[in-house]
């Protein structure tokens, strides 16, 4: 009989409204990824005088032999693990503090989101200066406290440099986690805590049995976002150490960038992009699984 003309009209208008956004998203996200998959099957570098030559999977084969690739993977993993780990601990702590009521809470909250809003590249400059081996304030404080006798070359030592960039990243992105967790904390009804206290629970027990399970969806989301961002970290390290010293802080992103922009090895760069992409999607899929579960659980407790 008569089709539902209202729904039909709505759909037509709907697609008209969605389409421009969708096209831009496809152009900026889908095309580059698809292009990388395609280009990774070709050799296109200075050796081929920048013309494309089909080589099948040889770029991937080369990757297995590429020690620098594995080193950057390792660096990326170390950076991601430690920065996300400390950000989470600190972020949760800050969120718990900001969830208390005290005078001037509004101002403190403003201050607490400041690091997140500032440009990473500029913040990296600030941290480079802070960790400066001659005039840096870190060395100055440690010297004044008598903890060291001579200035430490923070960004010149492989281990310390990694520590320094992780520290800077923790500073920059802890606010992101604490904002998300704070929103989660505020959505937990005070009644639950009161009921729990009447049941005789200590604050620590309440934290374990109410706060953490109900906060779990926000925790998983925050960790997921942070994982993806940390795994693709570029600007902070590019400005602070440029990947040095001796490649000690070179992450996959930096390696991809120099493969393409410095060595002009487009085919291999594309293969690196593909592998990074696939790894990321894998982790996201796993995280999404846990997210669904934790959401279901939190709802169940509610």
């Amino acid at each position, binding site marked *: 009989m008569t089709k539902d003309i209202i*729904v039909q009209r709505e*759909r037509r*208008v709907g697609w008209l*409204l*969605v389409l*421009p*956004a969708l096209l831009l*998203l496809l*152009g*900026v*996200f889908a095309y*580059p*990824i698809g292009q*990388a998959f395609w280009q990774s099957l070709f050799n296109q570098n200075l050796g081929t005088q920048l013309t494309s030559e089909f080589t099948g999977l040889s770029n991937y084969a080369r990757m297995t032999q590429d020690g620098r690739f594995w080193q950057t993977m390792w660096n990326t993993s170390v950076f991601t693990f430690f920065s996300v780990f400390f950000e989470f601990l600190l972020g949760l702590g800050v969120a718990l*503090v*900001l969830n208390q009521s*005290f005078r001037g809470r509004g101002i*403190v*909250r*403003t*201050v*607490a*989101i*400041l690091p997140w*809003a*500032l*440009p*990473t*590249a*500029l*913040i990296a*400059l*600030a941290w480079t*200066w*802070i960790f400066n081996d*001659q*005039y840096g*304030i870190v060395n*100055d404080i440690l*010297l004044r406290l008598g903890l060291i006798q001579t200035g430490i070359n923070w960004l010149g030592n492989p281990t310390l440099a990694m520590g320094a960039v992780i520290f800077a990243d923790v500073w920059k992105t802890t606010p992101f986690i604490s*904002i*998300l967790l*704070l*929103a989660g904390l505020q959505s937990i009804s005070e009644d639950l805590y009161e009921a729990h206290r009447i049941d005789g629970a200590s604050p620590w027990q309440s934290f374990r049995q109410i706060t953490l399970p109900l906060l779990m969806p*926000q925790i998983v989301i925050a960790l*997921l976002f942070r994982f*993806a*961002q940390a795994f693709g970290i*570029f*600007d902070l390290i590019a400005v602070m150490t440029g990947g040095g010293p001796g490649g000690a802080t070179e992450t*996959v*992103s930096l390696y*991809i*960038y120099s493969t*393409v*922009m410095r060595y002009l090895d487009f085919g291999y760069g*594309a293969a690196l992009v593909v592998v*990074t992409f696939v790894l*990321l999607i894998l982790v*996201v899929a796993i995280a999404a699984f846990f997210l669904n579960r934790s959401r279901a659980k939190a709802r169940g407790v509610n």
Partner: protein
Amino acid sequence: MTTFPESVSKSQRSSGINWRSLILPIAVILVVLFCLAPVLWQLLTSVKVNQDISAVPSVYFPRRFTLEHYQQLFARRPFWNYLLNSFFVAAASTLLALGLGAPAAYALARLRLQGERVILAGVLIVTLFPPILLFLGLLRVVQVLSLGDNYLALVLPYAAINLPLTILVMRSFFEQLPRDLEDSAKVDGYNTVGTLLNIVLPLTLPALATTGILAFITAWNEFIFALTFITRESMKTVPVAASQLGGASIFEIPYGPIAAATVLGTLPLVLLVLFFQRQIIQGLTSGAVKG
């Protein structure tokens, strides 16, 4: 007998309160210090004279202040250009993201589209892509369309990067907007476009402002595309230009001007945060959590 346990519990409680009441202020002070110290140190550095900057031990309370580093920035570099570039690119991409994202969000929230779930899932996943995965393919697009050293090479990707957040935040906003309002407008005699412009849009302005601020911040801060697609000095954005400030030789790093550049480059965002912290928090949480 009866007073004994009471007095014990009282003293326990009072000492507990004292101890606990100290934790919070200390924690608050630590949070504030942690967040502000690096920025303040950079600010202080930017107004110190060179001798104080390179003094060992460090000077925490300089006697002399100077603006020479700021003057140098503008004298030796087109720093006004950097600022204006950043501002133009961020503003234009924000407007584009809102202009494309808000209608899409409305359609996803209200109109019965097929494939709505697929689109939303795609939008969500895309927020997790780091820009490094995109720059190679975009580089090709930029070359093919010869968009190098063209603001469009930044405006379009920035708008795209901000689209997922815009769509998610605006969609959750539209879903909260009572449907009756739009039905009422239809009964009153507005057509779809009229409803959107006269009824929905005025109510949407606060949400648009929220997402717009977030989009502006993201665009202002972007680094890798700006580094790759723009090479002409006068068209660079602040983050890239500041990171490339160098001296006459590697031994002569201009700490003062670098500090001044970071201060100038961060100042607009500090102001945004000061005025709009509520909107920023609201936007971030609704974008990430509701999705």
